[in-house]
């Protein structure tokens, strides 16, 4: 995995726990059409947008916004 993907997964861990890697991987494949391992800084803005939408379905929306902001900030 790239340093960016590692960082995104690590950022998501406190919010998604063991599902963090699968969740981020799914968002990358389904919406950005990239593998998690190939994630780069250029993808972060878009990824954050999809994370906010997707995470909002399974957790408190306020927390989803918080996670999206952290991902977007890199």
């Amino acid at each position, binding site marked *: 995995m790239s340093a960016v993907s590692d960082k995104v997964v690590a950022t998501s861990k*406190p*919010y998604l*726990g063991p*599902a963090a890697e*699968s969740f981020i991987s799914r968002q990358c494949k389904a919406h950005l059409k990239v593998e998690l391992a190939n994630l780069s800084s250029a993808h972060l803005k878009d990824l954050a947008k999809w994370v906010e939408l997707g*995470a909002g*379905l*399974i*957790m*408190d929306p306020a927390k989803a916004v918080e996670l999206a902001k952290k991902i977007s900030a890199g």
Partner: protein
Amino acid sequence: MKGTIRNKLVAGFSGVLVIMTVVAAIGGYAVFSLRHSAFDATRVGARLNSLSLEIQIHNLEAVRKIKSYLTQTGKPGEEKARQMNLEEAKFEINEIHSLAAKAIAVAPTKETRAKFATIVAAVTQYEQALGKAVETSAANPVSEGSKTALAVYEDAAENLRESAEDGEVVGHDASQASLEAIERTSSRSVALVVGISFLGLALGIVVSYQLSRAILIPVDHLREVAESVSLGNLDIAVRRYSEDEIGDLADSFSRMVTAVKFFRMEAELTQSEAASEVSNERSL
């Protein structure tokens, strides 16, 4: 300082401890002050009583000496004994003066001091009457003037006796007033200690109630969430009530519920994708 449960418990119990210490200190002060005023008041009352009794004894002794002195008047061979009686009577009078002055110094109130000042006046009068009686009896013991001086002396002696008795009553009254003062201080102290104890108890109850609420409410919420999740309902919000260990537990629980939700959604999606593939294959 972080508001952990440990810190909350330490703060709560320290607060209760401080309250109990304040209650104990006030109680201790009240008992000390009661003891002090009781001791003080009893000492003054007893001292006045004792001074009054001493004055009476010296007065009786002075009267006895003067009686002897007067009966010895004109008796040959008894001049020396007579003079001795007179000197001893004067000594007793001086003692009465000194004791009355001490009583005035010890007396706690203006009224009490006035009573002992009366004794001083009475003993001065007695002294003067005695001087006159001695003088006239020495000149002519059977003269009219001598008889009058003797009568004045006897009146002064009676007056002094009555004043000394009054002094004793004053001493007794002072003791009684002391007892009343002790009773008043005691009642005040009891009321104060009981009041402060109730205040401490009320504060202790408030602190315990707040402490139990701070712990029980978030724990109860987590219990409800756990029960709901165990029954398969994952659409439940996990709230973080406090920035302590229970808050951290709520966060962990929330993360766990989110992960379970995601894995369940993913499983459902995979299942539906597989079903769709099977259906496509069949249609082909």
